[in-house]
């Protein structure tokens, strides 16, 4: 089958070409400024600028194409200005291939006792000196622009999957879109770094649909599916993933965030998802 009949897209800092399909599943080549990544792809977590105990040479020997850096941790230490002065995260850790950073929002919510989400952003207590701080969509962009990863994530309004308040999910769905718009506006390096929105909506079919529509309207280089892997049941999980991938443009990459058990990965592949992270250290899996 000629590849020009398979889904593809071209964005300022990302090219995506599906090379084979089977049902909803597909394999593709994702061209980033630093590397051409074969998908579906598992992205090892290099939280503080190192994939625990491995040298970047060993990662290349393992044929790893893309790793993650953690915005919250690296923003704290050593800080994005220092990383920027060292040639971005790539230069600082000497990793020549693909890199993705998340927004910092998840760690805010999951790690910090006193995180408060308001329309401005995520308000929290600094882990360093206890002072009140605010992570806004704009600040998240500034940090991620300094770190310089190929793919960066919007700051989204994440509701824990175990929350039972439907109004909170509704609020988060619309706020995520508003924060996406602020991120797009604040993003200072759109020709070098691709900003991915994160689909929210909890497990509500209607809210997921709204989120999908609104985010896809913004015509971003790729999309992430968030709000999962927070303790929900498997039946719920796969239906949400399936609905989300069905609502996303086929020619663009899809990133399912935070899953890691092998079964989940296979399900997501079936549903047509692209990238996934594995939080080994958190799940212990």
């Amino acid at each position, binding site marked *: 089958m000629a590849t020009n009949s398979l889904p593809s897209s071209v964005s300022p800092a990302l090219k995506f070409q599906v090379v084979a399909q089977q049902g909803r599943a597909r394999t593709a080549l994702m061209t980033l400024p630093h590397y051409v990544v074969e998908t579906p792809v598992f992205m090892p977590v290099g939280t*503080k*600028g*190192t994939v*625990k*105990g*491995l*040298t*970047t*040479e060993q990662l290349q020997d393992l044929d790893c194409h893309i790793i993650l850096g953690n915005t919250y*941790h690296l923003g704290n*230490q*050593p800080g994005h200005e*220092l990383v920027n*002065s*060292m040639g971005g995260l790539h230069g*600082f*850790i*000497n990793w020549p291939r693909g890199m993705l950073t998340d927004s910092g929002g998840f760690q805010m919510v999951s790690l910090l006792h006193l995180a408060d989400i308001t329309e401005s952003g995520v308000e929290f207590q600094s882990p360093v000196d206890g002072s009140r701080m605010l992570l806004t969509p704009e600040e998240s962009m500034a940090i991620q622009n300094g770190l310089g990863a190929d793919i960066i994530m919007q700051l989204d309004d994440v509701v824990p999957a175990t929350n039972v308040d439907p109004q909170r999910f509704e609020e988060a769905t619309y706020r995520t879109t508003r924060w996406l718009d602020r991120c797009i506006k604040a993003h200072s390096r759109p020709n070098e770094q691709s900003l991915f929105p994160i689909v929210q909506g909890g497990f509500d079919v209607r809210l997921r649909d709204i989120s999908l529509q609104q985010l896809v309207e913004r015509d971003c280089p790729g999309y992430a599916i968030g709000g999962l892997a927070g303790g929900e049941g498997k039946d719920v999980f796969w239906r949400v993933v399936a609905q989300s991938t069905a609502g996303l443009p086929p020619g663009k990459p899809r990133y399912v965030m935070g899953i890691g058990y092998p079964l989940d990965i296979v399900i997501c592949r079936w549903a047509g998802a692209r990238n996934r992270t594995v939080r080994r250290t958190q799940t212990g899996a």
Partner: protein
Amino acid sequence: MMEKLRPQAQGIQINAMQFLKQPSAAQLTKTGVSLHHFIGAPRWPMLATNRDPTLQEYGTAGKSANNNGCYAIIHSGGQMVTPSDYMDVIEAVQPEIFVPIADEVPGDASRKRTVQSVDRTLQWLDACLARLSGVRREQQHHVRHHQEGADGQQGGDAAEQQQRWRRGDADAAAEQDEQPAKRQRLEQGTDGGGGDGSGGGGGGSVGDKGGVAAQAMLEPPLVLAPVMGSRFPEERVRSAKAVASKPVAGFALCGFGMGEDAALHPQLLSAAVAELPADKPRLLLGMATPEEALEGVVQGADLFDCGYPTHATLNGYALSFPQRMPASNDESGEGAAAAAAAAEGAAAAGAQAGADDSKVNLWSLEYSTDKAPLVEGCTCFACRNHTRAYVHHLLHTHEMLASVLLEIHNTHWWLGFFESMREAVVAGQLGEYAAWFKERRRAARELQDPL
């Protein structure tokens, strides 16, 4: 990773005591392979010692030794260890060469206690040699049985003994040529700190697999007899004389790094070495600093363990002490460049940064944006691929990779140090080298306030 080290590392050291538990000798034996295979280093010769230089406390904390055995503190806690326990471990580990169990005493032990430790260690050595010759006899019996056409038939105790000395067959075949060469190098008294890894003299090459198996069987480990004596030169002499004519491959100079005054080392070492045959290697255990290792070389030691590079790593230091005299014919860039840069670094850094020209303290905040390698001019993996700023960051975020990179560098540096000393001996310049080295280190210490 180890294969990237230059000068080439030639072997690894393990502490036999750590294999009393988890894994125990019995657990190791069940795997059916030697420790080399268990740890995934099948081609590295292994030296098993009675002490771990990175874990050894001063003296023998815990219970006292008695005639039945000594007390060892290992990862799982403390326990009494008999010569028989120790040999169980040796048989399971299957090192090429080892130091038998010894009655170590602290550097301030009484003469009476020291005399006791010399005598006791001798008894334990004889017990160990007896056990080894028992094993050898059984193996030889089995070899004859095997070669008489038993075609793989195995039976009874002899076979069990054979299993204990066999390593993985595939690697035995690969190593058959290496082993005689290694032994030859050992017997010629090369040091264990590194080298050009050349093939050495040709050993007997055995053709068929049956012959290979036989050769593997006939090689129980070589013994380095312990020389005790603590800080008493007469006891050192007595201990050395007692082992000098034993049927062993070499000698282990024990009881150093036990809190004794390092100024005593020259006398203690020369007293012992004077009684030992010149054609057998001497392992020196427990040297804590570069100067002490150098003194050991001057006094005639051939093999060394040393916890110094690892201690540097654990404390976030990258070794940088100059290794090469700034001689007029010094062609090599590395030593001279490192010497110059290190001197510069020391001058610039000053006392506040915790720097001197022997090591770089990567915890220091002054390195947070330093794009230089750990040590300018160093060709190790860490220095070629990473910066001080990155290692500094890894230390401050308590990341494992900090230790990985620092250990690579420090091991490289230490191997280079030994290469420098070998070259000085070959050039007949060891005296000048030692004088230069000690003077430089002494001058560096004077940069800081005395403790």
